[in-house]
């Protein structure tokens, strides 16, 4: 007897409560990797299509606008081959290379990757608790806590040895984020406080506390009076920039830390006993308890590790290109990175590869539509940013819709009509 039929029977017997996966999930799990990417791809295509309608509505040609976005992202860097002399990072040696690493598109690409870095990490901050059945909305707050602690450590301890100072900053930022998310994890584990509520509240606590710290007369306000911005971090604490101009937001090695964290995440979830516990708790807490696991401990750990990712994102941004933090940054960009990370995690279906790809997509979108990169004769940059938000929102909306499931339903309907 093949398992297809058995599966069929099982679904008929499946309770509607949602504890048993849908046939689509079953299908996806059997051909994971092949069909796994189809849903998210369809989601993205549809999101671009619908926002294309918005572009048409304001009298522009969507294809031309998207081409301008594409050029702005710098991803066209990869398709222009030639013969170039390129300096190897951190040296004076020049070698031949098939891509021009000093072109405009190279600079745009640096910005895209710079933006992608924190998105990867805040997306992981959502993806990991998701596997434990928790919804961490607090990536933003954890990011800011990591940022402010990094700035504080970075501007203190002047004269410390570079690598040590960097390591200390990264460590403190990471632990800060972990601690902040750990509060929500602890509340959940101990008293069952819903993590959505607690992380949202913790976001605002973080934002307004930091706003106070950096504000007029605040303890972390810099030496310039009347400017609510922190001091710059020590030069020694800045992350090495390996590509692009040092003074104009070149690309720091932070991107490699983020990529390494994708690998760490994959290992943790798929290969470690902790990941096994987290997944078991996420799928079925009762079975996890029966298997001898502590559900509370896993809730706490999943949140704390997630916070570590988000805190690390803040630390890397501070050490990589921001260097100082202003009161207005925190207040005005209150929801940005966290929300984009959320969209990236949803689109990437909480897998390491998916999160990486989705983060690159959103990093590219943000960069491609920003005033600095976008060709202004084609689209007004102030509207372009809104378009990013629209696409982002549409993605979240369509991810929620489960396009593949919808398509399967439609096929079934059509199949039925055809037999009549």
């Amino acid at each position, binding site marked *: *007897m*093949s*398992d*297809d*039929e*058995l*599966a*069929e*029977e*099982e679904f*008929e*017997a*499946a*309770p*509607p409560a949602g*504890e*048993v*996966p849908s046939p689509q*999930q*079953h299908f996806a*799990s059997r051909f994971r990797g092949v069909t796994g990417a189809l849903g998210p791809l369809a989601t993205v295509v549809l999101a671009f299509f619908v926002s294309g309608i918005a572009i048409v509505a304001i009298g522009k040609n969507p294809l031309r606008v998207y081409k301008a976005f594409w050029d702005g992202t710098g991803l066209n860097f990869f398709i222009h081959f030639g013969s170039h002399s390129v300096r190897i990072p951190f040296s004076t040696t020049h070698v031949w290379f098939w891509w021009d690493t000093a072109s405009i598109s190279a600079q745009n690409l640096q910005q895209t990757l710079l933006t992608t870095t924190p998105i990867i990490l805040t997306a992981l901050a959502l993806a990991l608790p998701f596997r434990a059945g928790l919804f961490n909305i607090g990536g933003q707050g954890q990011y800011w806590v990591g940022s402010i602690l990094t700035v504080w450590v970075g501007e203190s301890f002047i004269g410390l040895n570079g690598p040590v100072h960097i390591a200390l900053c990264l460590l403190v930022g990471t632990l800060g984020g972990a601690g902040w998310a750990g509060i929500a994890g602890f509340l959940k584990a101990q008293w069952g406080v819903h993590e959505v509520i607690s992380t949202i509240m913790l976001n605002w606590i973080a934002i307004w506390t930091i706003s106070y710290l950096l504000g007029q007369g605040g303890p972390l306000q810099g030496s310039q009076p009347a400017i609510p911005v922190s001091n710059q971090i020590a030069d020694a604490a800045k992350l090495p920039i390996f590509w692009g101009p040092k003074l104009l937001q070149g690309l720091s090695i932070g991107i490699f830390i983020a990529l390494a964290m994708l690998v760490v995440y994959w*290992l943790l979830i798929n*290969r*470690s*006993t*902790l990941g*096994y*516990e987290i*997944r*078991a708790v996420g*799928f*079925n807490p*009762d*079975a*996890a*308890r*029966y*298997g*001898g*696991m*502590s559900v509370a401990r896993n809730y706490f750990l999943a949140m704390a590790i997630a916070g570590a990712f988000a805190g690390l994102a803040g630390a890397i941004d501070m050490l990589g290109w921001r260097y100082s933090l202003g009161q207005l940054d925190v207040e005005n960009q209150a929801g940005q990175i966290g929300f984009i990370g959320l969209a990236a995690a949803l689109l990437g279906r909480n897998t390491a590869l998916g999160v990486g790809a989705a983060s690159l997509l959103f990093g590219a979108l943000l960069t491609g539509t920003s005033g600095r990169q976008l060709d202004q004769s084609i689209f007004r940059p102030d509207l372009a940013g809104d378009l990013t938000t629209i696409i982002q929102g549409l993605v979240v909306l369509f991810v929620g819709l489960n396009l593949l499931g919808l398509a399967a339903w439609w096929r079934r309907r059509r*199949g*039925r*009509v055809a*037999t*009549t």
Partner: protein
Amino acid sequence: MAEAPLLELRGITKRFPGVLANDDVNLDLRHGEVHALLGENGAGKSTLMNILYGLYTPDEGQILLNGKTIDVGSTKASIEHGIGMVHQHFMLIPVMTVAENIVLATEPRKGGVLLDYASARKRVRDLSDRYGLAVDPDARIDRITVGQQQRVEILKALYRGAEILILDEPTAVLTPQEAQELFEIIRSLQEQGKSIIFISHKLNEVLEIAQRITVLRRGKVVDTIPAEGATEPGLAQMMVGREVLLRVDKKPAQTGDALLQVEDLHVFDDRGLESVRGVTFEVRKGEIVGLAGVDANGQSELIDAIAGLRPVASGRVVLDGRDVTKDGARDMIDAGLGHIPEDRHRRGLVLPFSLAENLVLHGYRKKPESRRGLLQLGTIGRRAKRLLEEFDVRGGTPDTPAFALSGGNQQKVVLAREIDADPKVLIAAQPTRGLDVGAIEFVHRRLVEQRDAGRGVFLVSLELEEILSLSDRILVIYEGQIVAEFPPTATEEEIGLAMTGGGREVAA
């Protein structure tokens, strides 16, 4: 067959990728009969009924109603043809009232928009009076019992004008008493001229309620026979395709020292009521101790407390000479307790996990399944392969998700995991619930093997027959207390009396 059939399925064939779920199935339903559809899990019963109800489109074959071909391309069409289905898991909205659920989608309206609740209520009341299905139209679905929910499902089908009712494993979720009440309802529906297709894999039920029985095996009709003259062993053989031992063969027990001792145990349930009230018993090496009792007399709480899943209020639990009263689930597993939980979907398995992952649910944190916090996938996979073979788990490889297996095979996975951990004491809570005869036989044989291997087995079951055929000693629990102990030679009547709290003085 002189009488023309009301409904006829002719040559129904349904293929799913890689499998033939229904292969040229013929079935006819006469007016006013109860026709049982019998078969093992995975035999294609539900597929066939879902075709009839319009959920699936058959690849081949026709459906005839009163001799005319009909098209049931959708559930809407099948309802219009007077076919109603009560699914095994109910399709009700928990926060709405009984009346609201019944009239849903075809509500009587006031002024075209507003629900005319008074009229809905009245119609529901009329219906329930006519068919003797007592329900309170104003009760909320989540506040009534499962048996009552099932009545609401039946009323919903009747409200929509069903003449033919499909009942998919209707007794699976019911207590024995509720099942008897359901049979009364079925008989009354029959008297009112309704025709019923009754899907089941329980032989005694089918013999009790049906007039004719169609047996399906691997998607094909084995035969259709009248219930009169049919026997349980005969039906079992038709279902499984070979002779089945309904009674367990076993040698006399070779008992040794006590492995599990429970002393004056008191445990509270989720509502804070004392549901285990001073239970004392022991399980010795090499014996199966059966705990009989009507559902919800403290069995679940007792098992949970022993297994470390629920705190002990007072009393002692001793496992192989060591006091483990305060130990949690992990410590109990390490101390040598195997536990086949009563609900394999809620506890026994992580359904989206692969079989290999499910098989290490306890062992994942120990060598050689993991080293330094990393899972050793090679070892885990090889172990899974060996166990799936040893326990004859069909329908899956180590990578198959657990939900893709039939109930019987899922239970074999749980059994494999618990037995392979080499426990000193094995708690088997309702180990055959929802399984078909072939799988029941397998589970029973394995449990007796454990006993013969010198382990202590504590069997908790609501099926008295199962307790009687497996146990070396039988305890009866009633309202959280052990009220009687019987030797395996006791009769069902004696034990049954003790289960309902009667004859306390006589026993023990």
